[in-house]
C-alpha cells in the first residue's frame, strides 16, 4: 500500500551527486552504444553475403571484387574493421570507394553512396520534429484526458474518455494514417499533405504539415497515457497522503493538482522513458505511411539494402537518442520525486 519508488537499478542512490550520476550514466551509455555497434557489426557479417558485390559491375572479375573489398576496408579482420569504424567517428577516415570522410565519420552508405553521418543529420530534424511533436500531443492529450477521466470518475465524461482510449489503442498507424489523410487532406482539404517543412524556414508550415503525422503517431500512445493517467490518478487519490491533504482542508482541486498529480506523474514519466523506443519505432511506420524522409525511412532502406554503414549509423544514433532521453527522463524523475533527489 505504501508509496514505492520504481525499482530501477540504474537510478541513482539517494546520496549520489548529480555530477557523479551523470558521469556514471554517460559512461554506461557509451558502453551500451559500444556493445550495440559491435553486435550489429558482427551480426551483419555473420550472414554469408558480400556487400562488395554491390560495387562490382555485371561481369565482376575476382580482382575487381578484391579491389572493392580493399576499398571498403573489408579485406581486414573483422575487429580491425570495427576499430577503423570506431576510430572514424573521432578522427575521420579516407575511404577509397567514396573519398574523404571527415569526423564524425560513420562511413558511406553502400546503397546511396552518401555519407552516413550527413544523411542522418539531414533527416534528423524530420524524425526529431515527428517524435517531439508526437510526444507533446501524447503527453498533453493523454494526461489531460486521463485527468478529466479521473476527476469525473464514473461519470459520462470518464466513460467517454476511457472508451475512446480503448478504441485509440486498438488502431494502427498504417490504417489510420491513410484514412485520415484521405478525409482531412484529400476530401475536406483541411490540412496540407504531410511533408517536412524546416521549422527555420516556416514555423507555421512546419506545424501544419506535420500535424497529421503527429496525431496519427500519437493516437495509439495517447490512449495508453489516458488510461495510465486515469488509473494512476485514481490510485493516487486513494493514497494516505491524499487523504491527509483532504483532512487538512485542502480543496479538491488542490488535492488533485498539487498532491495526486505529482504521484501519478512518476510512473508516467518512467513509462514514457521506456516508450520512447517504441515511439521511435512508430515514427518509422509513420514516416513510411506519409513518405516523410526521416531516420526511420533510412533505417528501413538500410535493412532492405544490406547497407551496413547506414544500418550501423542509424542503429547507433537511434540507440544514442534513446539512452540520452532516458538519462533526461531520470533527471526529470528526480525533479518530480524528492526521494530520489540528488544531493
Amino acid at each position, binding site marked *: 500500500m505504501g508509496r514505492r519508488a520504481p525499482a530501477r537499478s540504474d537510478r541513482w542512490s539517494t546520496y549520489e551527486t548529480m555530477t557523479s550520476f551523470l558521469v556514471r550514466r554517460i559512461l554506461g551509455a557509451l558502453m551500451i552504444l559500444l556493445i550495440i555497434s559491435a553486435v550489429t557489426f558482427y551480426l551483419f557479417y555473420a550472414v554469408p553475403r558480400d556487400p562488395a558485390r*554491390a560495387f562490382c559491375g*555485371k561481369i565482376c572479375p575476382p580482382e575487381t571484387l578484391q579491389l572493392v573489398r580493399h576499398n571498403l576496408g573489408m579485406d581486414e579482420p573483422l575487429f580491425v574493421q570495427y576499430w577503423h569504424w570506431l576510430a572514424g567517428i573521432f578522427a575521420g577516415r579516407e575511404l577509397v570507394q567514396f573519398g574523404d570522410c571527415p569526423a564524425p565519420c560513420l562511413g558511406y552508405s553502400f546503397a546511396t*553512396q552518401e555519407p552516413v553521418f550527413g544523411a542522418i543529420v539531414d533527416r534528423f530534424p524530420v524524425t526529431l520534429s515527428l517524435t517531439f511533436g508526437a510526444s507533446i500531443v501524447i503527453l498533453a492529450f493523454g494526461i489531460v484526458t486521463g485527468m478529466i477521466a479521473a476527476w469525473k470518475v464514473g461519470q459520462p465524461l470518464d466513460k467517454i474518455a476511457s472508451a475512446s482510449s480503448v478504441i485509440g489503442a486498438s488502431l494502427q498507424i498504417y490504417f489510420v494514417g491513410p484514412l485520415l489523410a484521405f478525409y482531412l487532406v484529400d476530401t475536406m482539404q483541411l490540412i496540407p499533405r504531410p511533408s517536412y517543412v524546416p521549422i527555420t524556414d516556416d514555423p507555421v508550415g512546419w506545424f501544419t504539415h506535420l500535424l497529421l503525422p503527429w496525431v496519427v503517431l500519437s493516437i495509439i500512445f495517447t490512449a495508453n497515457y489516458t488510461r495510465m493517467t486515469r488509473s494512476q490518478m485514481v490510485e493516487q487519490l486513494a493514497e494516505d497522503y491524499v487523504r491527509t491533504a483532504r483532512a487538512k482542508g485542502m480543496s479538491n482541486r488542490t488535492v488533485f493538482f498539487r498532491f495526486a498529480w505529482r504521484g501519478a506523474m512518476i510512473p508516467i514519466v518512467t513509462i514514457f522513458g521506456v516508450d520512447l523506443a517504441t515511439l521511435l519505432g512508430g515514427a518509422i511506420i509513420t514516416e513510411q505511411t506519409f513518405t516523410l524522409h526521416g531516420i526511420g525511412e533510412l533505417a528501413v532502406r538500410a535493412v532492405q539494402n544490406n547497407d551496413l554503414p547506414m544500418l550501423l549509423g542509424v542503429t547507433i544514433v537511434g540507440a544514442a537518442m534513446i539512452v540520452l532521453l532516458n538519462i533526461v527522463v531520470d533527471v526529470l524523475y528526480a525533479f518530480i520525486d524528492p526521494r530520489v533527489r540528488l544531493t
Partner: protein
Amino acid sequence: MRSHSRRFVSMTAVLAAGALALAGCAKGGGGGAPEGAAGSSQKPLENKAVSAISVGTAGDSTGPAPEVPGAKPGGTVYMIDRDDFSHLDPGRVYLNYNSSVSALFTRTLTNYKQDDAGNIKLVGDLATDTGTTTDGGKTWKFTLKDGLKWQDGAPITSGDIKYSFERLFADFITEGPDYAESWLVPDANKPFRDQYKGPYDGKELDTIETPDDKTVVFHLNAAHPDFNFTVAMTGYGAVPKAHDTKQKYDKQPWSSGPYKIVSHVTDKSLDLERNENWDKNTDPIRHAYPDKFHMEFGLQSQQSTERFMADTGNDKQAFTFHNPVAPERIQEVLGNPDLMKRSLQGLTPFTTFYNINTKRVTDVNVRKAIQLAWPSKQIQQLQGGEISAGKIATTVMSPTVLGYEAFDLYEKSSKPEGDPEAAKALLAKAGNATPTIVYAYNQTPTQEKVTIAIKEALGKAGIKVVGKPLNAGTYYDAIGPVDNKYDVYWGGWAADWPTGSTAIQPQFDGRQISDNAPNYSHLNVPEINSAIDKANAATDPAEAGKAWAAIDRQIMEQAAIIPEFYQTYFGLYGSGLGGVRFDPIQGEQSALNIYVK
C-alpha cells in the same frame, strides 16, 4: 525473385550485389500478381520492340533530331519513381535506370536512335559517325563533332574523351562495365588495373591517341568489331578533366547534354534545368523540349500507378522511367481505353531462364527431357501472365538483340504446359527413366508455388525434383561456386549492347567458367567456344548477327538453359505529356522526346 524491376543490368550485378531488392522480390511484382491478371482473355502483347537494329551512317548522326510532330518547347516535366539513381558518374553507371536519366546530361561517343517505325540505329552522338576501323576492329577512330560544349561553355575535346576512359582505371570506379578497360591494356589476360592505374598520378594511357582536338584513336589488344556499340554504354560517357571531382563526381556530374543538375537530394529529388551550352544541332537523338525536369523518388509502383490513373495536378505532366503498372491494376488499365492511350508496352532486353548445371546433369537427353516437361505456361500464370511477367521465351537471345532468330526446339509454342510423353521417350533413350534433379530456388511465396508446379510437371515425366529453398540475400552466393550442388536454378541476363557478344559470350563461353562468373550452366562445348570467337571477329554487323543466332541454336540444342521469359514492360504516364516513348535498349520509358502538351 522474379523481377518486375527492369533495373536489369544483370542478375549478377543487380541481384547478387546486395541491391537484391532492386531486381528481386522487393519490387513486389514477384509475389504480387493476382492469378486473374493471367487470364486467357488477355490481349496478346504486340512485339513492338522486335525491330531491326542496324548501324547508322554519318548522315544519321547529324543533329538536330527530327522534330516530334506537335511538340513544343517549355514547361516542367515530372518524374516519379521508386528509387533514386544509384550512380550518376558515367564510369559507375551500369543500371538501365541510371542510364536513362544520364542520357539527359551525359553524352557518349555513339548512341541509339529510334525512328518512328521503331527501328533502332547506332549513330554518332559526340562522334560524327559510329567510328571507323580499318583492321577488323582492333583500331577504332572517332571524330568529334563541331560545336560540342560542356555546361560551362568549354569545348569538349578529344583529350576529355581520352581522360574519360583513363579515369575508369581508378580504384574507386568499380561498378561500371570494364570491356574497354580490358581491351585497352597490352595484355587482355591480366587484370587491367595491374597494367594501368588511372590518370590521377599523372600517367596517361598510351593506347588512346589524340592526334588533334577532334580525333580519338583507340588501339585495342584484340579485334572487337562491335566496339562502337561498347562505347554507346553510359559507362563510357564523357567526363571533363577540369571538373572531375573523383568520388564526389557521382553526385554532381558535369553536363555535356541538354540539361544540367540543379539539385540532387539523395533519395528525395533531382532537379534538372536546361543547359544553355548544349547545341541541338550537334545532337541527333535529344530534343530537350521541356525547360525543367523535377524527379521524385520513394513511390512504390502501386502508388505511382494510382497517381497516373488519377491524373491530377502536376501528375498530368509526370512520367516514370521505371515503375511499371502495379500487377493488381493491370486488368483495370487494360480495360480502360483512356488509360491505354497513355500507356507503353514493349519487350525489354532482359531475359530470364533456368540454368541447367551441365557439370551435374551431363546427359544432354536428360536436359532435353527437362526442357520438354517444363511447365512454362503454369509458371507464367503464377507470375502474373504475359503482361506482368513476360512472353514465354524459346531462345537465349532476346528479340531486342541484333540478329535474333525465332526458333522453338522444345515445343514451347505448341505445348507450353509441357510434354511429359516426349520427355519420357527421351529419358528412355538416355537409359535413365527416373532421374532426380535438385532444384534450387529463392524462397518466396510465388517461388514456392512455381516449385510445386515444376515438381508436378516433371513428375509426370518421371523426373523427381528435390526443392532446395535458398535465402534471397544469398541466392547468388549459393549458386555461384562452380562445384555447387544444384542441378537447376533460375537466372536472368540482359545484353549490354544489342549484339550477341554480350548476350551470349559471358554466359556460354566455356573458357570463362569460374566461381561466381555468369556462366551458371557451366556449359563448355569446344564448337560453341570457337563459334563465339568467329562471331566476335565478324566485322559486318548483319553477318555477325547471323553467327550469334546460330550459336543461340547450338546452345539450345545443348539444352543448357530452359528459357523462361522475354521480359515485358507495361507502364503509364500523365495525360499532359507527349512524346513519351518506350526505349527498347533500356527497357523502360525514355525522356528524350518528351514534351509538355
